[in-house]
């Protein structure tokens, strides 16, 4: 069974139900919508920066997390995971194919959302010189794609471990939106711990010095590498667990 | 007493139940039959006030379901055995139901005992097999000790012992004077359980009558006779004006007689001194009768070349 077949099977699965379409659509529309709102209310004579235009990427990321987690948990909920393992007894290859597909889709969604935001902003706000000239600008825009890719990997891994939609989603949403930001409130050590939080690291990669980390240890590129390592590590654990478990 | 009058339910353009009227009487098991998609479940859900009829009414002892006080003491129903929270124990499931209708907790233990789940009452229902869930569903239906009971495919998933048990419990409930309405696709089971039938197809009433009547109308009974003195018996039956057909059954020559009783054939044979090797009544099966009557009401025909004629009469 070749990887191509497995990925193609997974893509039929993913795109033959409604929720991934909704999630992906919203993941593209919301950041662009946010960029539009931001640009429209920005003073027309003051330039806006690329980083500010991309601020709404978090909406997209949340929906990508939801989409990727549901791609796994609904299979457990409706019993199709068993059918999958029946058709592909090598479970890891089936799950890797799913991860690859979901992550790939997430990356594309990220790219569309980021370029869409940029495009809308440059049309609506001609005063600003919005482009992909500097390394920072490139990272802020094109970087959304890898961030979404690895976010999706994390979500697939959590979905495999938790197997249950509500639990997986609560974890995946509360973690980046509440736990990671609140960590910085802890006096003395909070800010130091915070920069080792995966989604904060991803944010640091995208936004560089504008991210919430005051005194970063990692360079933006290293922050992405760190985020990727966390996601792949989590996936490895999830695959081992899924292989050992009864389906 | 359940009275259904001109009941209609539309979902968009599809008509699930179409001007359906029937009533279910106490003291007997009434079978509710129909092909898939005939509207049986929808009808049952409307009886319980779960779905709103587009038009028409359902009355339970003269009142709509939603107006019943403590409805569980009037109607007990099992529609889907899997409608239980998987992490809740069987006992807790019944306890909350009992509480809604102010039934004592003691009653919970009683019905658990009746369905044979006492030993597993505190286990989570999610770990139950379909058969055990089915028993839990039946316990829930019996909880309020209601006069009217309604079961949707109660035999589904039960093992043979359970099937036998439910057949007996339904007959017992009817003999206590209760109203019992049961839907099922298993006609060999229904033939043994239901005295009365309500048959629907495409949402419309096809027939409401006794089971025996239903079967006999569709396919009359025949009598199978085997004897070493075939010609003598044939002649004697001819003289009495009785029709006889020759067939080969189980590789033995056999006379098939229609339009009379086995008693009469036996007496004619005895009068002529004919030795009988077999004298048995062959009834049509409920399956045959049902398939004949609902033929055009079946919605999804499978393609097959293999079905043979009279499987229903196999013993």
């Amino acid at each position, binding site marked *: 069974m070749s990887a191509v077949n497995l990925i193609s099977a997974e893509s039929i699965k993913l795109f033959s139900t409604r929720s991934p379409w909704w999630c992906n659509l919203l993941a593209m529309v919301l950041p662009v919508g946010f960029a539009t709102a931001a640009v429209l209310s*920005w003073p027309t004579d003051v330039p806006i920066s690329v980083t500010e235009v991309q601020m709404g990427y978090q909406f997209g990321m949340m929906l990508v997390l939801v989409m990727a987690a549901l791609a796994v948990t609904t299979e457990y909920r409706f019993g199709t995971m068993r059918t999958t393992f029946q058709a592909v007894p090598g479970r890891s290859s089936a799950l890797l194919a799913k991860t690859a597909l979901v992550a790939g889709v997430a990356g594309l969604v990220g790219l569309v959302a980021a370029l869409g935001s940029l495009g809308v902003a440059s049309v609506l706000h001609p005063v600003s010189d919005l482009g992909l000239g500097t390394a920072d600008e490139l990272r802020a825009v094109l970087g959304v794609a890898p961030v979404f890719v690895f976010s999706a990997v994390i979500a697939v891994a959590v979905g495999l471990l938790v197997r249950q939609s509500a639990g997986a989603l609560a974890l995946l*949403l509360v973690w980046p939106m509440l736990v990671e930001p609140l960590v910085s409130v802890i006096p003395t050590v909070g800010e130091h711990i915070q920069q080792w939080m995966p989604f904060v690291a991803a944010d640091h990669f995208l936004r560089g010095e504008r991210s919430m980390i005051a005194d970063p240890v990692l360079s933006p590129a290293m922050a992405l590498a760190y985020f990727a390592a966390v996601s792949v590590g989590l996936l490895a654990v999830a695959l081992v667990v899924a292989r050992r478990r009864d389906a | 007493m359940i009275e259904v009058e001109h009941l209609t339910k539309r979902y968009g353009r599809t008509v699930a139940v179409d001007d359906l009227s029937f009533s279910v009487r106490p003291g007997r098991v009434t079978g509710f039959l129909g092909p898939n998609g005939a509207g049986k479940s929808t009808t049952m859900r409307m009886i319980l006030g779960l779905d709103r009829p587009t038009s028409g009414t359902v009355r339970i002892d003269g009142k709509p379901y939603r107006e019943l006080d403590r409805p569980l003491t009037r109607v007990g129903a099992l529609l*889907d055995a899997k409608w239980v*929270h998987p*992490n*809740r124990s069987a006992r807790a499931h019944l306890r909350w139901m009992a*509480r809604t209708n102010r039934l004592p907790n003691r009653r919970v233990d009683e019905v658990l005992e009746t369905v044979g789940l006492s030993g597993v009452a505190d286990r989570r229902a999610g770990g139950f097999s379909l058969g055990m869930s089915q028993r839990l569903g039946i316990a829930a239906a019996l909880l309020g000790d209601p006069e009217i009971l309604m079961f949707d495919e109660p035999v589904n998933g039960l093992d043979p012992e359970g099937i036998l048990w439910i057949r007996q419990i339904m007959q017992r409930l009817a003999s206590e004077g209760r109203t019992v309405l049961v839907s099922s696709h298993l006609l060999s089971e229904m033939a043994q359980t239901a005295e009365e039938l309500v048959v629907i197809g495409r949402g419309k009433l096809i027939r409401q009558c006794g089971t025996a009547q239903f079967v006999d109308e569709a396919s009359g009974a025949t009598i199978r006779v085997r004897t070493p003195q075939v010609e003598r018996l044939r002649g004697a039956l001819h003289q009495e004006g009785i029709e006889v057909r020759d067939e080969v059954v189980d590789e033995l020559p056999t006379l098939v007689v229609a339009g009379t009783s086995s008693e009469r054939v036996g007496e004619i044979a005895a009068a002529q001194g004919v030795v009988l090797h077999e004298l048995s009544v062959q009834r049509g099966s409920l399956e045959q009768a049902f398939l004949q009557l609902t033929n055009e009401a079946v919605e999804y025909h499978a393609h097959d070349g293999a079905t043979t004629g009279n499987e229903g009469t196999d013993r």
Partner: protein
Amino acid sequence: MTLLAVERIKLFSTRSPWWCVVVAVGLTVGFTALMSGFANEQGTVTVGFTQFSYQFGLMVLMVMAVLAVTTEYRFGTIRTTFQTAPNRAAVLTAKALLVAVLAGVVALAAAFLSFWVSDLLATNSDLSLSGADAWRNVAGTGLVAFLAAVLSVAVGILLRQSAAAVTVVLVWPLLVEGLVSLIPRIGQDIQSWMPFVAAHHFLFGGQPDSAEAAMMMGMSDVPYGPWAGIAYFGAISVGLFVVAVITASRRDA
């Protein structure tokens, strides 16, 4: 009363509410303890500081409230429920009330435990529950959780589906309300009228460290007082719940 008792049996006979209660209290109190432990040296622990982590508990309790409804739809027990008690408005109100009371009590317990734990750990700070503002801050979390649970039940009834409902009740307060303020010029005005911002203002408004608390939500000044804030939040919760009940009564179960 009967219906409340029924909902109580239902809620506590599955595991997830227990887990939610434990996690809600544990997270809130644990995080407060962590913060207070580190803040002890500076001696800057205030009443508001001990309540910063209320959102942890609140989110978990909202998830619990959503699941109390959506699992009934998922497992079909809602049909059994409506079969045993055909008055749907009464059933759903009983459920909302029970879940809300539970959420309120748990949040209250978490708030007082947080305060008490901070008091133990932050020996250098002079913590005391005196004054209306301090009491509103600590005891008010119960009220906020109560109303937030009603809102969550309403969302659950309307969406009937765990994944969607959980996403909505988490993304709304955590992301939407915060990011709204980033829209230039009008963003902050819109934000003041966001329900969870109003609830937050009820808890922390008018306190010495309200600025820090406001910053946490990424929010600015609001043009109304704390009690108006909770009234506004309550109106939205109850309004949504009424809409949900009407919808459920009309719908096929």
